[in-house]
């Protein structure tokens, strides 16, 4: 445990140092980046070792005289620690060249401070071993991330994003409070241990409350409304951390509650799975409709959270239907997807950050042809896209493969489990297809073709640390995709920490599966090499000429005539229009020589619409109606006193 705390200390210390050194920009950045990354590295090392030798480790401190701050690292928390530290490490390295506005030295310093706090608090959340510790770290996490979201508070939409995020995280925390409160109501202790002793109906309520609470942090539909606003607002490496890691803490919470409640009703599995399916499909549909690169990626986080939840749901159904293999497959697939998503989503956000940093715009339809100037960025981004689409031989495929197999195990079962499995498999397939459509759009429109505006013309990709971190992560995507063995082991260790009594589940089938994946990937790569060789053979000594694209007879093509992202997605969105109503705005074209016109479109998030209509406005209405109470006339005020007395006298 001391190792762990040491790393946390280093990280936080680095944060404080950056505040102290705020005046010397360069020095401050170096110190901050160095200490943060050092701490993350140490923590990562410690976590990996802990996970591998599956050792459980605990520590506890006296707190407020009678309570205690208790920490414990078991397989589950170790797994999440790995995710946290790994991604944060890379993100910190990335930030060194990304945060280069020496004019805003203080702000950068503050950013590093809260970044360090965020990392530390996330690590503490996943190691917390009683309610007080958990809530303490949880709230600190929310607070610090809020400050990171409003880093660019000048733009009003970022402020709106920060506000939304603030409110959502607070409400979510309140739900978790309620869940814990119910538990405390029965057990009378803040410890996690006694949670499985409460009656079953209470367990169901507790689970639902905590699912809402944690889901609102994880960005589960319909509690995801804040996410597509908040993630783009933050600096890109922060977006990477939030999207890649922080929302996973919500997943951790859900799994943790499931473990602690230790109540294996099919209900939980069904809730989680349905939530996952809805978030998955709608997330990617909304992503398709976005015009803002980072917003699009944010919506993909919703989608991937959906996939993770599908995995977990399959796992829970497996547990409730007494089917260990299915359970382990589902859970391990879900966990592995947690890791994978954190990796490729970070690549994508960092690539988007690079694009934003160099072109100064996030609007997809304003870009184009970046691949020629930003080779590494483009390549890594494409790798990330392939991974997020779950295509072999990249890491996204591995986790989805496990979830699929788990789902198919469910096909063998009866009634609800069977239906749920069908549901899961089909939605996974649809999600995969939609994700492919979405990322071909992004890659095609942003990185390929010709620049659509000036912003995309003169660009470069300077900033070695940014490139380095992107390369590292892209490499990880490929490596995990080809050699998933070790990582599956890790996630299975995490599963065995769930205390489902599946410690004895034979690992052979999983080893076999990973071997198969490696093998298949190898087959593909070898044949790829062969084909390349053949192509080279046929091209040797041939004349290669360059010319303009064939305009199908049109001789004056311009960059403006390229297919835009909006039109690319239009037909698919039209298919999903009930769930994703489209607002369009374009003036009628009239006259023989029509003047300049425009077209605006915006895909509405039904959750957001309904939140306004169903919750916010009624509440405001009611409270507005009550405002007359304070209407300034002292006579009535005295009347209130008399009224209070008279009413109370009835109860004596």
């Amino acid at each position, binding site marked *: 445990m001391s190792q762990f705390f040491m790393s946390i200390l280093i990280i936080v210390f680095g944060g404080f140092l950056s505040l102290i050194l705020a005046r010397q920009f360069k020095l401050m950045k170096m110190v901050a980046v160095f200490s943060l990354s050092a701490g993350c590295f140490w923590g990562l090392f410690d976590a990996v070792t802990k996970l591998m030798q599956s050792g459980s480790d605990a520590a506890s401190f006296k707190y407020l005289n009678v309570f205690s701050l208790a920490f414990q690292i078991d397989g589950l928390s170790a797994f999440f620690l790995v995710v946290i530290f790994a991604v944060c490490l890379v993100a910190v390295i990335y930030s060194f060249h990304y945060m280069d506005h020496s004019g805003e030295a203080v702000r950068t310093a503050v950013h590093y401070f809260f970044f360090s706090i965020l990392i530390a608090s996330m690590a503490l959340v996943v190691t917390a071993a009683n309610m007080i510790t958990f809530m303490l770290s949880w709230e600190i996490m929310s607070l610090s991330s809020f400050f990171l979201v409003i880093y660019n508070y000048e733009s009003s939409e970022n402020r709106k994003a920060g506000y939304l995020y603030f409110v959502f995280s607070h409400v979510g925390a309140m739900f978790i409070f309620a869940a814990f409160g119910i538990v405390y109501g029965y057990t009378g202790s803040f410890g996690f241990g006694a949670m499985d002793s409460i009656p079953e109906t209470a367990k169901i309520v507790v689970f639902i409350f905590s699912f809402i609470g944690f889901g609102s942090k994880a960005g589960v539909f319909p509690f995801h409304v804040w996410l597509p606003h908040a993630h783009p607002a933050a600096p890109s490496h922060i977006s990477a951390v939030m999207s890649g890691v922080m929302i996973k803490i919500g997943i951790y919470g859900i799994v943790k509650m499931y473990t602690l409640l230790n109540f294996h009703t099919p209900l939980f599995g069904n809730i989680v799975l349905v939530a996952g399916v809805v978030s998955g499909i709608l997330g990617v549909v909304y992503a398709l409709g976005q015009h803002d690169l980072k917003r699009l990626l944010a919506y993909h986080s919703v989608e991937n959270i959906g996939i993770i939840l599908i995995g977990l749901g399959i796992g829970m159904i497996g547990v409730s239907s007494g089917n260990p293999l299915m359970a382990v497959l589902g859970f391990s697939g879900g966990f592995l997807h947690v890791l994978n998503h954190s990796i490729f989503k970070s690549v994508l956000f960092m690539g988007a950050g690079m694009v934003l940093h160099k072109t100064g715009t996030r609007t997809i339809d304003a870009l184009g042809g970046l691949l020629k100037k930003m080779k590494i960025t483009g390549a890594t981004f494409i790798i990330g896209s392939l991974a997020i689409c779950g295509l072999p031989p990249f890491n996204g495929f591995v986790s989805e493969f496990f979830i699929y197999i788990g789902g198919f195990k469910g096909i063998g079962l009866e009634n609800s489990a069977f239906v749920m499995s069908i549901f899961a498999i089909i939605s996974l397939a649809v999600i995969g297809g939609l994700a492919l459509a979405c990322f071909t759009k992004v890659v095609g429109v942003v990185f390929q073709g010709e620049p659509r505006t000036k912003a995309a013309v003169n660009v470069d990709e300077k900033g070695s640390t940014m490139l380095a971190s992107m390369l590292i992560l892209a490499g990880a995507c490929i490596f995990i995709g080809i050699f998933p063995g070790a990582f599956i082991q890790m996630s299975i260790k995490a599963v065995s920490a769930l205390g489902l009594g599946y410690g004895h589940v034979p690992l052979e089938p999983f080893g076999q599966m990973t071997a198969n994946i490696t093998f298949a990937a190898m087959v593909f790569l070898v044949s790829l090499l062969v084909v390349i060789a053949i192509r080279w053979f046929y091209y040797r000594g041939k004349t290669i000429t360059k010319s303009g694209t064939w305009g199908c007879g049109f001789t004056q093509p311009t960059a403006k005539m390229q297919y835009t992202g909006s039109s690319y997605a239009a037909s698919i969105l039209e298919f999903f229009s009930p769930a994703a109503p489209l607002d369009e705005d374009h003036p009628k074209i009239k006259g023989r020589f029509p003047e300049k016109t425009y077209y605006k479109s915006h895909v509405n998030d039904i959750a957001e619409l309904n939140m306004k209509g169903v919750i916010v406005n009624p509440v405001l209405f009611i409270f507005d109606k009550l*405002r007359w109470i304070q*209407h*300034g006339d002292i*006579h009535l005020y*005295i*009347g209130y*006193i008399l009224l209070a007395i008279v009413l109370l006298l009835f109860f004596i």
Partner: protein
Amino acid sequence: MILHPVDTILSLVLLSVLFSFGSSRLPGLIKVLAFQGIVVSMVPFFIGHDMNGGGIVFTFVTLLIRGIIIPMSIYIAIKKVAIKREVEPIIGYHASILCGLGLIVAATYISRQLNIVSISDYKLLFPTAIALLVAGMFLLMARRNAIAMVLGYIMMENGIYLVGTTISIRARHIVEFGILLDVLAGVMIMAIILQNIKRTFDDVDTANLRTLKE
């Protein structure tokens, strides 16, 4: 006996309540209050609690302050600064009187319900106290003129004084002292505020004091 002194006094007090409700002009209201103050402060003499010398002096002082000083000073104040004499009712006089009657009845009814041993032989004592209390609040709520409201407050205090002095045998002096201090200091500070109100709006109509609201 036929005519119990306490009950006689108290009936006078109740009468003063009705008068106060009916009186439309400040001087009249003040006079009524002065009368009420005197009468109320006299009650302790007739109730058979132990009355040592100190107590007597104390009660006299109370009488002085309640009955003479405060009303007099207010009277002089409105004489000096030509304040509108109208009490500006929110609830009209006749309606007020009806309310008064109703509230006296209610008070009697309530005090019938809870019979208090220590004062069981003074039928009117508790009803009057309650009546004064509520009547004071009624004035506070139903008169827009600030001075009238202060007078209402004083009437309320009278009611509490009745309760305090008569009901509680023990620690009665400290109660009296407290009430006295309350009335003195409270009325004093209110008077100061009244002056300022007068200076700022050159009127004591509380209609001016409704700007702070949501």
